């Protein structure tokens, strides 16, 4: 089966790749969005904590557990422990750093500056602790196979695993936010923060847990993506920008926004290269044929263009609340 010169299997392959990419964006954007919603802090350090998660995962897996449990178990232990470690780290960070700016002048701006500082500090801190070259962190043997063979690019096990894990995580997060007491308070604080304070609810605990949660999500994404990408001190910089695009497009202050935003942009990113492989010839104004190379490169730029269009037409994003930035 083929449409416009693109085979169905090729289309499915790209859909699959877009789902993987989108899943990571969703997880990261949710963490960013939860922290912003409740605390009003735009977390410029999100990418750095994501990077830290990958490094912690490397240490837990390759240095501590793999040598005597084997790489499979080592990887599972890393996947399970990184969010816990990062959660604790996030809470400690909130307690000893972020909480100092509460009730000061320009507290939100100070928060942004602190997190921006972390995005500069953490990569060099990681280089200091772990050394300067990147760290090897690879797909554990149990995931080194293909689920479906397509003749060209297979539907591989590890990428499928990341999609499923991300989906489960998003579902759990939804239950947490919409069905538990903590979630209710996070939503209340996101909705009307002064009111929560006036009611005499112990907000500091909620804020601490929420910040920890956001950081845990970042760290978990980092360790899960590590086998597919390079583990490097700068790995967070690139993805942070894309995460912001997802949040802007999906909309701040909603749960569904980052989820839909991440999935849509993931598909946009993955399907754009296919345009160049159709039989339809596109020419630019000078008559030159715009070939497949162009469309392969265009997918990343397109994310920015979509963001710009959204900002012009619907500044609050697809599902965002009005006035989220007030």
């Amino acid at each position, binding site marked *: 089966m083929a449409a416009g010169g693109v085979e169905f299997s090729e289309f499915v392959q790209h859909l699959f790749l877009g789902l993987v990419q989108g899943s990571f964006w969703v997880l990261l954007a949710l963490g960013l969005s939860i922290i912003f919603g409740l605390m009003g802090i735009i977390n410029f350090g999100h990418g750095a904590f994501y990077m830290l998660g990958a490094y912690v995962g490397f240490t837990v897996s390759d240095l501590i557990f793999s040598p005597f449990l084997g790489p499979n178990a080592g990887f599972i232990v890393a996947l399970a422990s990184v969010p816990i470690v990062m959660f604790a780290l996030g809470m400690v960070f909130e307690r000893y750093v972020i909480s100092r700016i509460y009730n000061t002048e320009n507290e939100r701006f100070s928060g942004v500056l602190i997190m921006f500082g972390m995005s500069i500090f953490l990569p060099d801190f990681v280089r200091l602790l772990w050394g300067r070259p990147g760290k090897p962190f690879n797909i554990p043997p149990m995931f080194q196979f293909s689920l479906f063979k397509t003749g060209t690019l297979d539907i591989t096990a590890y990428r499928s695993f990341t999609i499923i894990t991300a989906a489960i995580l998003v579902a759990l997060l939804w239950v947490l936010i919409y069905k538990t*007491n903590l979630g*209710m*308070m996070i939503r*209340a604080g996101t909705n*009307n923060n002064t009111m929560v304070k*006036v*009611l*005499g*609810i*112990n907000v500091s605990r909620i804020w601490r847990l929420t910040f920890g949660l956001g950081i845990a999500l970042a760290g978990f994404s980092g360790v899960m993506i590590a086998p597919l990408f390079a583990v490097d001190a700068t790995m967070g910089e690139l993805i942070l920008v894309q995460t912001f695009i997802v949040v802007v497009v999906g909309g701040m202050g909603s749960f569904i926004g980052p989820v839909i935003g991440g999935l849509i942009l993931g598909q946009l990113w993955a399907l754009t290269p296919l345009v160049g492989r159709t039989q339809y010839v596109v020419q630019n104004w000078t008559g030159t044929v715009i070939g497949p190379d162009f469309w392969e490169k265009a997918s990343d730029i397109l994310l920015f263009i979509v963001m710009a269009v959204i900002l012009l037409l619907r500044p609050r994003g697809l599902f965002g609340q009005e006035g989220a930035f007030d």
Partner: protein
Amino acid sequence: MPILETKSLSKHFDALVAVDSVDYSVDSGELRSIIGPNGAGKTTFFNMIAGDLLPTSGQVIFDGADVSEVPAHERSHLGIGRTYQITNIFPKLSVLENIRIAAQSRKMTFNLWSTVPSHKELVEKSDQILERINLTEKRDELAGTLAHGEQRYLEIGIALATDPKLLLLDEPTAGMSPEETIQTGEFIKGLADPLTVVLVEHDMEVVLGISDKITVLHNGAFLAEGTVEEVRANAEVQRVYLRE
């Protein structure tokens, strides 16, 4: 025995004197009203009692203790509940959750990770309050979708859920139709005793039938205080207020 007292309570915003040395006293179980024209300082006076603003000078004494410097959330725990002139609820939470979160704030130990319907006594308490404010049917709707009048009731419900001894209501009838206003008056009357209620209103007619005593503020200062008849008879009140 007075549950609330203020002693020469003043608030200055730079040169502007919003509240000017007010001495005020409310006994437990009373239903009192404060009236005054726009900008008289009613809300500012409330804000100082509830702790949203700290006084420039003077004292707030609640339940025998000086709370002038106590922050708002602690006063909430001491038993001062309030509503705002501009509706202040959680529009993105359900009606039940709005009440529930307020009820929860009184309970220091509860499991954050447990689901919202757990904790029986909290649910029961919330349901009772919903019954009182007549919103049982709308319990699972988003608060933001309620009609304006219902939202004002919800806000009172939130305040009630914090188990206040003193309830401060800032223009609860603002934006309501005349019929709704009369109903609300009756509803508020039903709240008083054992609760102490202080009500801010623009309009003397609203508070006529329900208040034990009316206080008139003008330009931040205490103009008159007494029963409806006494206040009506007051020549100064006639001059600055009723003739407007």
